[in-house]
């Protein structure tokens, strides 16, 4: 029996969540991943999913009479270009699970097609971006929190499940320069309607009623200013607990609020974040306080950056008048689809059929779909053209922005299957094809 030659790659970045861990070790043999170290469960699974499997697309696919057939890149790009040129109001959506260079080409393609350009922030931290545009945001990098924070608040976010290594790398167990005793030097508060696994390991758990975060945030702001509220409880939280929390907030040396979907996806959306930012601003009269959104996809922060420096706006961008216009609620994917305005969709590294509300998916399915997607997903299975990509961060390099907007370079640890191209190259070839067809 011959021994396979194992190559180990060190300090590999994980292309799954916004924590963008950069200390992974990956063992490769025969161009397959055989072992992972340091990664969380989800990251490990993502790396292993790039190995050959029954549900990965290895060649471009075109749907004919309801079934897929293998196609050449030229054929598939030709069909995709036809769909996009014919469409009056095409939507280019996704981009958050790919690298910045591909996002840049996506923006160029959208402008050329006079399409709508949107990324997954639209259904995720879009409200946070709106609030930051309204009132600014006191943000910092994760290293500062790790070294300095002695009070960490998770509001409407559950990092044990959604960002599994956030606690051990930046916010809870890790030893920092001024927090030498790690967990013992930090006080953890969780505000959530459910007693989540994060809440179970916190020092203080505040149980808030669903959809009532806005009231609680404003009650805290009022108490902070010394207002005596005429109420026994606010949003299900007894007044004594609110006073106790305010006392903890004022007494810390360096506090941070990490907030998640519990604030952005509930009623009052961006107004919740407005209020959280104002609370942090007011807390800075007493001590040092900052906040940071817990971004989901590993490069959704990058998508917002790239779209902003290309078009002026972070998401929900409409090019139909040949210049960029921005209006979430009108040009955001779910609103457009609910209003049945879109007549063709190009999906880049995303699965809206799984992640959009049913009504939006129903309308998306009425029209042609092109998917740049490595795996069988509910979106790709019902698409018309599939363009199989290499995994960014596993099979090709690129740049990604961590949740605190720090750009890091993704690594390549193995080769992609022969017929799978990097997202950037696919989009460039599609753009060339579209230009050639229009005689430019």
């Amino acid at each position, binding site marked *: 029996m011959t021994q396979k030659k194992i190559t180990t790659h060190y300090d590999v970045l994980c292309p799954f969540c916004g924590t963008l861990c950069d200390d992974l070790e990956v063992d490769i043999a025969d161009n397959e991943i055989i072992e992972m170290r340091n990664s969380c469960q989800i990251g490990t699974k*993502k790396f292993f999913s790039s190995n050959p499997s029954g549900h990965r697309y290895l060649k471009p696919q075109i749907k004919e009479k309801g079934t897929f057939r293998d196609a050449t890149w030229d054929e598939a790009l030709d069909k995709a270009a036809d769909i996009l040129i014919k469409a009056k109001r095409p939507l280019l959506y996704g981009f958050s699970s790919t690298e910045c260079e591909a996002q840049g080409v996506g923006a160029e393609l959208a402008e050329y097609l006079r399409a709508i350009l949107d990324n997954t922030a639209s259904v995720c931290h879009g409200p946070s971006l709106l609030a930051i545009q309204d009132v600014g945001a006191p943000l910092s990098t994760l290293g500062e929190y790790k070294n300095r924070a002695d009070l960490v608040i998770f509001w409407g976010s559950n990092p*044990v499940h959604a960002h599994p290594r956030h606690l051990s790398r930046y916010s809870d167990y890790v030893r920092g320069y001024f927090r030498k005793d790690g967990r013992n030097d930090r006080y953890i508060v969780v505000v959530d*309607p459910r007693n989540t696994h994060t809440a179970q390991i916190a020092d203080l758990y505040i149980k808030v009623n669903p959809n009532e975060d806005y009231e609680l945030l404003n009650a805290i702001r009022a108490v902070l200013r010394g207002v005596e509220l005429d109420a026994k409880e606010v949003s299900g939280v007894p007044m004594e607990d609110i006073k106790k929390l305010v006392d903890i907030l004022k007494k810390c040396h360096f506090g941070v609020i990490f907030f998640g979907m519990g604030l952005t996806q509930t009623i009052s*959306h961006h107004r919740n974040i407005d209020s959280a930012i104002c609370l942090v601003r007011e807390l800075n009269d007493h001590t040092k306080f900052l906040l940071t959104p817990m971004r989901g996809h590993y490069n959704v922060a990058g998508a917002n950056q790239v779209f902003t420096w290309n078009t002026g706006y972070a998401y929900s961008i409409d090019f139909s008048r040949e210049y960029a216009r921005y209006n979430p*609620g009108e040009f955001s994917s*779910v609103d457009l689809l609910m209003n049945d305005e879109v007549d063709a969709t190009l999906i880049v590294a995303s699965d809206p*059929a799984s992640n*959009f509300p049913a009504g939006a998916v*129903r309308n998306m399915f009425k029209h042609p779909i092109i998917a740049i997607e490595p795996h069988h997903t509910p979106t790709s299975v019902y698409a018309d053209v599939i363009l199989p990509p290499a995994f960014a961060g596993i099979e090709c390099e690129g740049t990604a922005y961590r949740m605190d907007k720090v750009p890091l370079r993704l690594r390549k640890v193995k080769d992609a299957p022969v017929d799978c191209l990097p997202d950037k190259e696919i989009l460039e070839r599609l753009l060339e094809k579209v230009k050639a067809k229009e005689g430019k």
Partner: protein
Amino acid sequence: MSLTNLILLTGRTINQGVALEGGKVTKENVRAAGICTFDKDDFKKLDCIAGTPVKVTTDFGEVMVYSTITEEGPHPGIIFIPMGPWSNQVVNPDTQGCGTPTYKGMKAKVETVKDGRVLDAIELIGKLKEVQK
């Protein structure tokens, strides 16, 4: 048995994250995301064993999922379905003009359907495609 006046929340779970990276068309994904977790006392009122299919209905739709008792309780009156194709059949698509649907905090009712069938992701989303024809 049935329960009314519940509040439905959705969100990431680590099992759902692992399952979606492992393959969205797999049975593992159904077990991870096609599931509704109940507070322990609420579940007693349903009078069924864990794993019994339940129909979750909101103002925006209905979906069949498996039932189980939460590890993240107590949360009386609240039910939780992980983000994904199943929860998205019953969430509120209204974005209140900001682009992001209201994925959390819908009023819901639940009834057990002992011989109910929980569809896999492709079948479930396929129903949205069929409506076109």
